[in-house]
Each structure stands twice: as structure tokens, then as C-alpha cells.
């Protein structure tokens, strides 16, 4: 049919590093395909080849039976990345018309009425109930993504390719997005979605494709698969995981940070204490000032009002929430990205750096977190999303602070690594560190937090003790 995608024997190498080893995949109209697999498996590479970002590949691509170099530059195929290409200062309607021929009334005069109607129709396609004059900057991240989808659909996209677009969204936003994607497949569109979130995949996909080390290892209908089945499917192809043992109860020690009526950005006034030897979890909806609380606790934001008290011995390290923007230094090596926060560790007389030791320590962390590829001299920017996350996490570990502030620690990481990160957080806690986990992913809280709370409108609500909370309880609690 006209929009069938047929991938045959696709291979791709970067220099001497082979990433895809012959992928064969056929996707028919109306399918909703979930593309899964561990970090660095080659999912994004596959999608970037479809998008025409990477040329110079082996094998062939066919679209609607015709051989094509890529699916880029056509109105019937749309790609959604984390960078949505929207202009915050402009209204929804203006964003939808970006790059389109203007609807004219007479000569250079624009026909605003028709533009607005067309925009409203487009929003209806994705089920977004917003006035078309709203500036895009005022929308939540999820709504922005919907606008991007609406724009693609309005241009006639029949195939949508989505790479981890939900990973930065709150659960509610993510749900709205994938539900509206699902609706488009009901009308015959095709969706290919990459995600590490099992619940999302199970909720909407018809078919699940698992990539491992650049090979297709699983391709099956989603029907009859439940959460555990899917985990098994993913983990079956990986090395054995660390079974999560019983957690010891927390033994909170001295205070590491105390926020007293602190106000900064969208947060505040906030009262919050984190002790040594405990994991405190915070969650909340996007735009609730959640991350500003994290910056306050870490010390990278100074309170406008109120106080943040940290004993002088309480060093801090941060895993920032927006990895793509705040995470690291693309052109620098993995090693440099790892060590930037902890340089005094390798200081020799005359303030010179002991680069040999530094390199060795970086190599250790790379091995411990299983960053792939494991050569610390490779450029950080070439890493897959999940591996970047590991490097940013490793940077905090190398700093070895008393207080860890971890924002979205498992964003974009695969099932295996997620467990590994939970285990590490446990280890930090038993080692006497304090951990503040700020996340929009309930699973993180259930897995690691000793007590947790919800941030609403910049304020931290009452704390719940973790014991026997489940994700469901928490979701209901919000």
C-alpha cells in the first residue's frame, strides 16, 4: 500500500563502529509499532536513518513499494523528536502555519479567520482543547508535543515516528499524547514509537519490536503480553539482572539540607529537610516548580526569599532534569564529562591535574555503569540517550557528595539500567549519603524513596512513608 514501510538488510557504521547489523522490518498501514531495546541498541540510529539524518548506510528502504533514500522531506511522514521545533513566543495558530503557504485574503493580507479555523481543526485531531491564540510558551510540555503532532497531521502525515517524546512528559501528558497517537492509527495512520516505558507500550502498541545490539531479536504482536511478560521479553535478551533484594529500613542521620520557606523560580515557599542515610522522593506535574525545589536543595539556585541551610560539610551533586540541554558537553570526551565536577580529586602539587589517575578513575566508572561504547575518550555527544544519562549519573558519583539531588534519574534508560540505578541509589543510602529524588516517574519513587511527597503549585505537600505504597496509590494521591 501507499504508506508501507519496508526496511531491508539495513546496516550502519560510524567509522569502524558498527551499530546496525542488518535490520529487516516491514510495517503496514495502520500499525502502531513499539520499538524497544536497551540503551545503545540502535533505535535512534534506525530512526535517524529514516529521517535522513544519517546517510551512508547499507541495505535499502522502500516506502509504498518504491525505493527511497530516506523518508525525509515528505508531507506524509512526520518525525517527533524531543526538540519540537516550535517557537515559544508565537501562538498555536502561528506555529501551525510556520513554513506553510499563508492563507491569503487579498494580496499580502492574511486571512486570519481561515487560519484560525484550520488550526482549530488540527487541534481537534489530537484532542487538544486550547484556544488557538494561546502562546505556545504557556503550554505544558505535553501540550506542546500535541501541537507538534497536530502540525504534522495538518500537513497530511500518515506515518508518525516518535523517538522517546514521552520521556520528558508527566505521566498524564504522556498518556494524552499516546492516546491521541492511537486515535490516528484508528484512522489508518501508522505510528512507530520508541519508548522505555513499558506501560505506555502495552497501552497502545499492536506490535512490539525489540532491537538488541543492532539486530532485531523479537517481533511479535502485543496481544497477550502483560507487564511481566514484556519485562521478560526485554530482559531475556540481556545479561541477568540484579534481583532487587529487601531494602533495609532507613536510618536517617544528621541534617544535610534544610529549606525554610525558600522561594525561587516557580517553587516556594518550600519547607523540606533531607537527612543523611535516607532517600526523599518528590513528584509532581510539569510546571509545578518541581525542579526548582531540586535546584534549591542542590544550591544551583539561590532563594529569592526564605533560607536554605546546609552544614559546611554537606557537599552536593546534581543530576539535572533536562539531559539534552543541561546534561553535558557534546564535543568533549566521556571522561571529561565524568570528571568535571570532581577535579580537585586529581589535583597534584602546583595545581596540576594527575591526568593518568583521572583517566583511570573515569574508566572505572564507565565500567561500573556499563556505559557503551566503553571507551572514555569517545565523544559524549555520540552516545545514545540512555548512555548519556549514565554518564551524568556517573559524574555525580565521582563527586562523592553527602547529598545527591537526582532529577529524573531513570529518564531514557533501559529496563536493566533502571534496576542498576535503583540498586546504586540504595547503595548510596547505605553508604550514609542523603538522596533527594525528584521525578515525574512514580516507579522511581516506589522503588527507592523512604518518604515521598507531591509538589503542587510550588509547594511541597505532606510526606507519606513509603512502606506499602504502590504506584497506583500514589497516582490516586495526586
Amino acid at each position: 500500500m501507499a504508506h508501507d514501510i519496508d526496511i531491508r538488510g539495513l546496516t550502519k557504521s560510524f567509522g569502524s563502529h558498527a551499530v546496525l547489523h542488518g535490520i529487516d522490518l516491514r510495517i503496514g498501514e495502520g500499525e502502531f509499532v513499539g520499538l524497544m531495546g536497551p540503551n545503545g541498541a540502535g533505535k535512534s540510529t534506525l530512526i535517524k536513518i529514516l529521517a535522513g539524518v544519517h546517510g551512508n548506510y547499507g541495505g535499502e528502504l522502500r516506502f509504498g513499494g518504491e525505493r527511497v533514500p530516506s523518508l525525509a522531506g515528505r508531507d506524509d511522514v512526520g518525525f517527533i523528536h524531543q526538540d519540537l521545533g516550535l517557537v515559544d513566543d508565537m501562538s498555536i495558530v502561528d506555529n501551525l502555519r510556520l513554513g506553510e503557504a499563508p492563507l491569503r485574503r487579498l494580496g499580502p493580507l492574511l486571512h486570519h479567520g481561515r487560519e484560525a479555523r484550520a488550526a482549530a481543526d488540527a487541534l481537534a485531531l489530537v484532542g487538544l482543547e486550547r484556544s488557538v491564540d494561546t502562546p505556545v510558551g504557556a503550554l505544558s510540555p505535553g501540550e506542546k508535543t500535541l501541537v507538534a503532532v497536530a502540525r504534522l497531521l495538518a500537513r497530511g502525515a500518515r506515518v508518525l515516528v516518535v523517538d522517546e517524546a514521552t520521556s520528558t512528559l508527566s505521566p498524564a501528558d504522556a498518556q494524552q499524547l499516546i492516546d491521541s497517537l492511537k486515535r490516528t492509527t484508528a484512522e489508518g495512520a501508522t505510528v512507530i514509537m520508541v519508548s522505555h516505558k513499558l506501560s505506555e507500550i502495552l497501552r497502545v502498541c499492536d506490535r512490539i519490536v525489540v532491537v538488541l545490539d543492532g539486530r532485531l531479536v523479537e517481533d511479535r504482536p502485543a496481544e497477550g503480553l502483560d507487564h511481566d511478560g514484556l519485562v521478560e521479553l526485554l530482559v531475556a535478551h540481556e545479561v541477568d539482572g540484579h534481583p532487587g533484594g529487601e531494602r533495609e529500613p532507613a536510618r536517617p542521620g544528621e541534617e544535610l539540607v534544610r529549606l525554610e520557606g525558600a522561594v525561587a523560580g516557580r517553587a516556594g515557599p518550600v519547607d523540606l529537610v533531607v537527612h543523611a542515610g535516607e532517600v526523599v522522593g518528590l513528584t509532581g506535574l510539569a510546571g509545578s516548580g518541581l525542579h526548582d525545589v531540586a535546584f534549591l536543595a542542590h544550591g544551583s539556585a539561590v532563594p529569592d526569599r526564605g533560607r536554605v541551610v546546609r552544614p559546611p560539610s554537606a557537599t552536593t551533586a546534581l543530576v539535572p532534569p533536562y539531559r539534552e540541554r543541561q546534561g553535558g558537553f557534546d564535543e568533549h570526551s566521556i571522561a571529561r564529562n565524568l570528571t568535571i565536577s570532581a577535579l580537585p580529586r586529581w589535583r597534584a602539587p602546583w595545581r596540576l591535574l594527575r591526568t593518568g589517575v583521572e583517566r583511570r578513575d573515569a574508566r572505572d566508572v564507565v565500567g561500573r555503569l556499563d556505559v557503551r561504547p566503553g571507551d572514555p575518550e569517545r565523544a559524549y555527544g555520540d552516545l545514545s540517550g540512555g548512555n548519556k544519562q549514565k554518564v551524568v549519573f556517573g559524574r555525580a558519583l565521582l563527586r562523592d557528595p553527602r547529598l545527591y539531588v537526582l532529577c529524573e534519574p531513570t529518564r531514557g534508560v533501559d529496563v536493566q539500567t533502571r534496576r542498576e540505578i535503583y540498586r546504586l541509589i540504595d547503595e548510596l543510602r547505605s553508604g550514609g549519603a542523603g538522596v533527594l529524588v525528584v521525578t515525574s516517574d512514580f516507579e522511581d519513587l516506589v522503588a527507592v524513596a523512604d518518604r515521598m511527597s507531591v509538589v503542587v503549585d510550588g509547594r511541597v505537600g505532606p510526606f507519606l512513608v513509603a512502606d506499602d505504597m504502590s504506584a497506583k496509590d500514589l497516582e490516586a494521591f495526586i
Partner: protein
Amino acid sequence: MRNIDPSTGGAATAPDPAPVPPPEPAAIRRMLSSDGFRASVTFIAFLALFAVYAVWLGDSFMTTDGRLLDVHQNAPVLLLGLAVLVTLIAGQFDLSVASMATLTTFLAIGLKVNQDWPFLLVIVACLGIGVIGGLLNGFLVVRLRVNTFIATLATGGIFLGLSSVYSKGTQLSPTEGDPPIPGWFSGPDSLGAFGNKVPSVVAWIVIALLVLWAFTAVRSRRPERFAEGAWAGIAAGIVAVATAVLLVVGAGGFVEGMSWTILLLLVVGLGLWTLITQMTYGRHLHATGANPEAARLAGVRTERVTVQAFVIGGVLAALAGIVLAANQGSASPDVAAGYLLPAFAAAFLSTVVLSSGRFTVPGTIIGGTFLVWVSQGLIVGGLEFTWNEVVNGVVLAVAVAFSTVFRKDGR
């Protein structure tokens, strides 16, 4: 399915696949696609160009002394190149360096000739002016968040203006009866004269340091397939051979030909290289330039680092002015104005000379020197010296474009 497609089996035969090119030897291909080769390709292209010059111009170009004279005379430009390099690494443009150099040229001459300050105090004052200028730039850019182009354009105007206020807009050269500029600073037999050479012991020490430095640099670029120990041996070999070749080709004259100004340039370069690559500050500087937000969240005090970069740039620019005063023995309005373009050119060339996209100290010195040699060769060959700036512009554009094209190839 392996069946032959019937639609192409008939008359309209599908074009045969292009004849497979004979496989290149794997070793050559691997070398051509290696990072080391890609980083060196511009460097090699320059060397090839000089080989052409050597054939074309013969001994009128290939004299160690003549080419060292080029370096000597262009030391202020190269110092300015290092000055803008530091701020470029931090992601800032410092357009005020040439004016700063002009100002300190006037002060270096004038504070002695007009005010009769003790000469060492004059030098300290000039460097102090460099610090103040850097702080001013840093304050405008970091605290007041003025765009770096506008801020440094403005301060550049101020520095230049101050120099002409100080000199009343005229040339400043010592005359009979004025307190004399010390003979060790300027004039024949002074530290600023090309004819006055560094003792050969010192030159040998510098060469030894450079060899050591080259060894460290090569060793740190170990390809993955070599073990650490084996690569150290290979690196030592490479550097030894390169040194031997250079000494044979005529760099031996380097030992006798090194002037104090060249020595100063090399020492400053070595110091800056150490600061930028071997110390915490350099890491913070690079991080700040690469992604300020990520750097700040990783605990780097980016504002402070940026101000410090402007101060280092200011001091280096002030030093360039002092060297200019030593070389010329006088100061004329806007002496250094024409140096801004070649200084930036040298810094940008460093991203392609023995580097893949990063600003480096040795690249700036080598690139800036090559730039001079290219135009000097043309001048020796008969081109009017007024073409100089045109040549500079062309070399910069061609070199950067060339290596960019070459690097894209790998993707």
C-alpha cells in the same frame, strides 16, 4: 525471497552494479579515516604548500633566519591570537585586544619618556592596565549581561581613545633629552631586537621542553588498539624522528636564531597550554564554553571563569603591546589595529591545525606562523605587500572550509 524479479529480467535490463573499485589496502584506509590523520590534514596541506614555495622560491624563502624573523616580528600578533583564544574557549569574543595592545604600547613608551617612571614599574603598570581592562570586559559581559561583541567593541573604543588622549593623537617616539628607554628593552642589542639572540643553552632547554611537550601530546592521543606502554614507545619514536628531521631540514638554525621575543612567545605559550590543558581552570574554561548551563549545574562557577578568561586575555593583550613597544621603540596611533583579523585568524586556524574542532594554544602559534609564512612567500615571490590582508582572509577561509569538508566525510 531470492527469485529473480521478472520485470527486470527482460529487455530493459537493470544497470549492472558499478564495478567494484579495487580494495584499498586496509592499513591505508584505516590511516586515512583515523582521527589523527583528519586532525592533521590541514597541517599537512600547509607543509605541502611550503614545499611548493621551496621549489619555486628556493633559498630566498627557505632560510631559517628569514622565517624566524617573521615569527619575531609577528610575536605581538601571535600573543593577541592567544589572548582571543582564551576568551573564545569560554565562548566569548574579545574584540578589544588590539586596542588594548595599542594603549599599552603608548604607555610603555610614554610613561618612561614623558613621566620618567622606573621602567619595571612601567611594565607592571601596563600589565595592570591589562587586568583592569579584562575586569571591565568581564563585568560588562557577566554582570551586566551586555552582548560580548558590543561590550568589547565599546571597551576597545575606550582603550583606543585613551591612547590617543594620552598621546594627543600623535606619534610618540623618544627624542634627545627625554628620559631614555632602557637599552635592554628596545633598540639594537636589546631584548626586543632580532639580532640579539638567546644563549644557545636556553634555546636547547626550550627545544627539550618542546620535544617533551610534543611527546605528551602525542601520547595522550592513543588510539584504542594500542596498549598504554606500547603507545608510549611509539609516541617517543614519532617525536624522535620528527625532531631529527626538523634538525636536519634546517631547524638547527633555530638554536642560533632564537631571539628573546621568540623565547617570550614560546614561554607564554607553554604556560598558557599548561593552564588550559593540565589544570582545573582549563577544564572549567572548556566546560563553560561548551555548555554554560550544564557547566553551572555541574558545579563550575561559570561567571568567575568567564571573568578570569577576560582578565587573562587582557593581560596577554597588554603584553603584546609591550612587545610591540620593544620591537619598534616608538608608538604610533593605532599601531595594532591591523592585528585583530590575523589574531582571530590564528585562533580559528588552531581549530583545524592538528586539532579537530578545538581551540588550542600550539595550533594558534603554528597556525598564526603559517599564515605569515604563506603571505611572506608570496611577497618574496613578487606580490605587493599590500595584498597581505587579502591573503590572510583567503587562507583562513580556505583552511577552515577545507578541513570542515574533510571531517564531514566521515559521517
